[in-house]
């Protein structure tokens, strides 16, 4: 566990790709089987334990430390796993430090009731770094800036083979990857790549940079489609096996039996998972009713029928279409979808356009129909092959401009993660008439980001200098007609809300600009937001 914990700690502080590759390669070269295989599995998110929840970890810590001292510590550190790792009162000489293999194997075999005892025993035996690594492992989010792709690059470096060789065999390999390491260390032959209904790494789009990309690229080279507001899925049906994968390769099929039932083909499709309202796409809120569930009962399936809007085809029968250009794949996709029976899989239509100006107009004013609720546009180069990862140039996403509103900063709280220690969670409000007919601010949302580190420093100082009241970790900041800080807030959408006093809830709000110059009294009225609802 010690070497793995050290690796995670170093990775989390090393920003450069090359630095991470060296750390990973050295770790894989120095660690033994099956320890390194479990480490690889945890880095590539091939491991998940659902037995340890953050709530339990917090409770275990509070049983060891005064809850008030724990709360002060958590407020300062801003990350639960890290706080527990740091404050956990160790019991010197309590136990032998567990190995990673022991942790993984015990957790796999443990019942829900046994996990807490195991965890406490390990926390007692480990040092702060080890405790941190253990808790990260258990809560399933290592977040040390290592993608599965990077881990594979490090394996390629270790074995002196091209990374594509690793990717080809990857989905046929299982943790702890003994065969894979044996091959990389030239102790055995390359393992077979065959695995039925396996996930194929997806191709992702870059956000377009309006300032430079449009002058650089020819509109005739690109096709455009609407960017649907669902989730990206890969639908696989091969040799009688059907799978529905998220874009990271997570198998989400069990929650969508209606979609699996519609995969009446032999091939692999790439598309958007949506809730269908007849032939039309429903808003994202409807899809949310079906996400993050293990199953879906008949009632839920009936109320929120799911389907796929297909935009690419990776395999047709046994033929790999990924090396074909997009224009070619698109023709194959259209013919493929046309042959399908049923209405759960439809085709994401191409949006014809002549030049970037026309496309910009379409983006600002989408035509009637589903395009109205699209997130924006996708641009795909006609000659681009289907390439895993996020290559620059072939695919772009061009989201719609966000809505903007000028609001006044009302409350602030210390942030978590990178922003811990700074007042960086901001509640903001807009003006309305209160019950006495006076102008008063009503909170309409909370924003955590959108500012630079330098701006964060200034915001933090503003909060400290203008605090009028404290409620636990929350500071109330001076905000009235004569004085206050105006934040220009960008957000993606607005919904009615009965949970919020203002009656509105924002989707994805963030600080767009800080209006140090603008008097608080000139911030927007609640009526501006209310009009957007109608």
């Amino acid at each position: 566990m010690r070497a793995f914990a050290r690796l995670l700690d170093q990775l989390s502080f090393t920003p450069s790709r090359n630095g991470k590759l060296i750390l990973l390669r050295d770790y894989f070269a120095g660690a033994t089987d099956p320890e390194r295989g479990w480490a690889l599995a945890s880095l590539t998110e091939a491991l998940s334990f659902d037995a340890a929840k953050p709530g339990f970890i917090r409770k275990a810590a509070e049983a060891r430390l005064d809850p008030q001292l724990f709360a002060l510590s958590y407020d300062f550190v801003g990350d639960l796993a890290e706080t527990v790792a740091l404050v956990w009162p160790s019991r010197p000489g309590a136990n032998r430090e567990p190995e990673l293999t022991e942790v993984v194997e015990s957790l796999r075999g443990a019942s829900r009731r046994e996990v807490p005892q195991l965890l406490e025993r390990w926390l007692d035996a480990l040092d702060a770094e080890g405790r941190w690594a253990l808790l990260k492992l258990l809560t399933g989010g290592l977040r040390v800036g290592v993608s599965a792709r990077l881990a594979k690059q490090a394996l390629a470096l270790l074995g002196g083979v091209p990374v594509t060789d690793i990717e080809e065999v990857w989905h046929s390999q299982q943790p702890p990857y003994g065969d894979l390491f044996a091959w990389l260390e030239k102790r055995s032959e390359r393992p077979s790549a065959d695995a039925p209904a396996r996930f194929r790494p997806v191709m992702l789009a870059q956000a377009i940079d309006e300032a430079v990309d449009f002058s650089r690229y020819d509109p005739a080279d690109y096709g455009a489609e609407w960017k649907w507001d669902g989730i990206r899925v890969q639908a696989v049906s091969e040799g009688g096996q059907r799978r529905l994968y998220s874009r990271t390769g997570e198998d989400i099929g069990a929650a969508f039996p209606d979609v699996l039932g519609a995969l009446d083909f032999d091939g692999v499709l790439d598309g958007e998972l949506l809730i269908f309202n007849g032939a039309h796409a429903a808003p994202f809120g409807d899809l949310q009713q079906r996400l993050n569930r293990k199953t879906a009962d008949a009632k839920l399936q009936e109320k929120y029928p799911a389907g796929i809007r297909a935009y690419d085809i990776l395999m047709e029968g046994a033929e790999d279409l990924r090396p074909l250009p997009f224009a070619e794949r698109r023709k194959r996709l259209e013919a493929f979808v046309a042959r399908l029976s049923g209405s759960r899989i439809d085709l994401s239509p191409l949006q014809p356009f002549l030049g970037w100006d026309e496309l910009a107009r379409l983006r600002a004013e989408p035509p009637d129909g589903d395009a109205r609720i699209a997130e924006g546009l996708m641009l795909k180069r006609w000659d681009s092959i289907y390439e895993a990862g996020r290559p620059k140039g072939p695919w772009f996403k061009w989201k719609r401009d966000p809505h903007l509103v000028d609001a006044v900063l009302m409350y602030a709280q210390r942030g978590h993660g990178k922003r811990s220690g700074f007042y960086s969670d901001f509640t903001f409000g807009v003006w309305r008439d209160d019950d006495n007919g006076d102008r008063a601010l009503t909170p309409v949302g909370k924003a955590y980001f959108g500012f630079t580190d330098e701006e964060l420093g200034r915001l933090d100082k503003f909060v400290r200098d203008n605090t009028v009241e404290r409620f636990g970790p929350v500071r109330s900041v001076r905000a009235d007609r004569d004085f206050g800080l105006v934040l220009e807030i960008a957000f993606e959408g607005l919904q009615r809300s009965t949970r919020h006093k203002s009656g509105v809830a924002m989707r994805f709000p963030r600080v767009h600009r800080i209006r140090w110059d603008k008097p608080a009294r000139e911030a927007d009225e609640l009526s501006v937001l209310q009009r957007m609802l109608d």
Partner: protein
Amino acid sequence: MATFRSLLRNTPDGLYCPPGDFHIDPVRPVARAVITHGHSDHARAGHGAVLATRETLAIMSARHGQDFARAAQAAAYGEAVTRKDVMVTLVPAGHVLGSAQAVLRWNGMTIVASGDYKRRRDPTCPPFEPVPCDVFVTEATFGLPVFRFPTADSETAKLLKSIRQFPERTHLVGAYALGKAQRIIRLLREAGYDRTLYMHGAMAGMNALYQAHGIALGDLAPATGERRDALPGEIVIAPPSAIADKWARRFADPLPAFASGWMQVRARARQRHVELPLVISDHADWNELTETITELKPQELWITHGSEEALLRWSTLNGIRARALDITGYGDEGD
């Protein structure tokens, strides 16, 4: 009976002792001051008369010039000095070279103003000396249970391992020029690292001063004036502000490290873009604070600066009367 506050109280200028008519580490110029140690937030220039250890006076003179005060008096550790009715004794605080606790005795009561202190071994200064007292005035820079520092040796080992793993990168170690820098140098020497250590220009004065006080730092050379991509695989020690600055770009793919107690919290390291956090502090961590208070068992605990809330809570849980003094102006030089 006189209360403890008749002997020492908080004022806008800092701690003040009425019967002795002097301040301790005042934040603004005053007539008479006792200075616990040379960090700039505690040792300001412009006082009338200053009482401090010989080493602290030397540090103040080096930093502020010889006329840093109108009059200066040196007191050796343990030497009793009388200020009006009050007996003042300076005893080691283990923080940096010359650092002292101010022990005030008057009318049968004893108050110890400990300044900044730590309980761990430091090869550059004598260890903290516990003095039984009625009131213990403590700092709380790292007064949260999250601050339980690893040994300085294990952190030094991390630095030496990184040099082996990334031999093509210059390792830039951020460390405060007074105390931390010299401690790191000594720790590296004790770990057997005998190569030349390279120094930012701001380190020269204090390094020379420490060497003049008999602390061997080995072979040092200036890091300035080097060409681009200079010093791969070498260790350069610089003020924390310099490691992420333009100054750092002259080195070979610099790897920023920072030696500070704040590095215990990951977000603090990331905010400063530190790639190699070294948890080495000249302040007491949570265990040192609470163990010192437990050992001294003062009637009252006064907390000057830092995370006083948690220490107040701990005192309540442990039946110790404690209060926060809310002194503003300390902590500027950090750790």
